[in-house]
């Protein structure tokens, strides 16, 4: 396969949930690249993780269309409710909170995603309910 690095990294992350540092050497060797090149690619792209995420990942869209309908307040509320900052995981390992830049639901903003499930027109109440479900799950 030409240009195999991104598909390979996606496959690893799909399997493990993240790309372990220990895999960099093998990837580099397999694709005849330097470790620096592989490391550079992994760290360049926001999507790739080098640490395992929490059991659930909550993504709240921060792009303009969602901002226009209160996304910033939702992110603040999520940080408060979960007790963790954006890009971090709650102390009990249950939830990783991430801002995201556009889920493509701009006509039904504000939007968010919990694991694989999308949610549109999210209100403070809906967010609170969703987060509660995660903490008990």
């Amino acid at each position, binding site marked *: 396969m*030409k*240009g*195999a*690095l*991104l*598909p390979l*990294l*996606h496959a690893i992350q799909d399997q493990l949930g993240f790309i372990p540092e220990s895999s960099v050497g093998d990837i580099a060797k397999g*694709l005849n690249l330097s470790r620096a*090149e592989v490391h*550079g*690619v992994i760290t*360049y*792209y*926001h*999507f*790739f993780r080098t640490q395992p995420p929490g059991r659930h990942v909550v993504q709240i869209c921060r*792009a*303009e*269309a*969602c*901002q*226009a*309908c209160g996304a910033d307040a939702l992110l603040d509320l999520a940080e408060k409710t979960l007790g963790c900052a954006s890009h971090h995981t709650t102390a009990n390992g249950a939830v990783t909170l991430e801002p*995201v*830049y*556009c*889920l*493509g*639901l*701009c*006509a*039904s*903003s504000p*939007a968010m995603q919990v694991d*694989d499930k*999308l*949610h*549109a*027109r999210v209100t403070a109440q809906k967010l609170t309910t969703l987060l509660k479900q995660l903490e008990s799950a």
Partner: protein
Amino acid sequence: MNAVKIFVPRDSAALAAGADEVVSRLQQEIAQRGLSVEIVRNSSRGMFWLEPLLEVQTPQGRVAYGPVQAEDVASLLDAGVLQGGAHALHLGLTEQIPFLAKQERLTFARMGITDPLSLSDYEAHNGWAGLRAALQLDGAAIVQTVTDSGLRGRGGAAFPAGIKWRTVLHAQAAQKYVVCNADEGDSGTYSDRMTMEGDPFMLIEGMAIAGIAVGATQGYIYIRSEYPHAIDAMRQAIVLATQAGFLGDNICDSGKRFALEVRKAAGAYVCGEETAMLESIEGKRGIVRAKPPLPALEGLFGLPTVINNVITLASVPIILSKGAACYRDYGVGRSHGTLPFQLAGNIKHGGLVEKAFGLSLRELLFDFGGGSRSGRPIKAVQVGGPLGAYVPESQWDIPLDYEAYAAVGAVVGHGGIVVHDDSANMAQLARYAMEFCALESCGKCTPCRIGSTRGVEVIDRITHNQNKEQQVVLLRDLCNTMLAGSLCAMGGMTPYPVLSALNHYPEDFGLDVRETEKA
């Protein structure tokens, strides 16, 4: 008795609003009541304030209900929804809903009507007609048709598609490529997503035509990782189209070859820039390349490459099937054809409006959009994505036409329209534009990499009233450097939202109008 057909969309926006829950409740109720119903998971009509939109096939046409939640299902069935019966959510015949009835849907003609992954649906609705027409022509004639149609790049840059194709056609190389840029990262845009989820064969058909036209045998669709449903739909559609002989080694028994592969992006906004995207497909960091060389001559893996956005390629089948003149006759000036405008943000009736170029923003905002969702006055409208200008009310009557918008320092771009009401703080939005540029800059050129961070700092000084007058001069100077000195649109267009906010809404920066004019 024949089964009644009920349609519930599978589009992400419908799923996010609860479409799957509606379907599972429907299935339960249908089983309990012993009804004969076939549920079709269609694409979305693009009226997102009505999603999940449930439609029922009746002898008069499809009757719509929406927005439907799972808890509405029982009462809908009680009210005789299968016969199009009256209910609080009853919207009448779908085609007569004004938002849809007033549109000119060419590219989106099948949207909301067909099952996206049904080859027979696609075929029955004019599918593959463009490809079949193209197979009767030689490459130069196909390119000429696209040129004559006046189709320009719908990703935002509006470069004539036919000219780009001609360059690739005449390039000599053992291998050429067609790459579809489906890295639709701009806030306020979702027409690419809708196309891939809702009418994937149309994109496949457009890409196959492009491949046949320029002599490329391999295509890639670079889809953002935030669009798992689009990736899934495209991958399935490629398998189906290949099995049916519309892709592969012998397209429609013509002896022509074109294969297609989906490449999943990884969350870097700048990879929506075409050369950064090529780097990414090649397995590298998505760093922008200097141009020239043009990607049409030295593109993917250094070989001649047609790069177009989803809507550009998806517009090609209808141009080939209906003829260049038919498409060209829509629009105004040098903006030919239609654009799928995407109403987003704080708008009452958010959704997709495909119209010929030339209508005004005011028509879109009020005749289609119904004003703001919050009910407050609309203050600013960002047209053309995060790198587009904020358009103030004084400019809402300018026709949506590439040249007319450029003349006032704005961009039509891909037709993404994000609405903000009067609670928006334009200085904060300008700051956000710089902050976003700092976050997403690939880092190759200095104006973008450094300028964006300095931009955040300068805007902060203005809003904190530190040496304000001088800082405004500095911000303008910085924007000028970014505009003229950046390698790509990331740094080169971030000044559009910043300067338009500063020029049209100086009060939000704590400035009075005279101060900004003086600067």
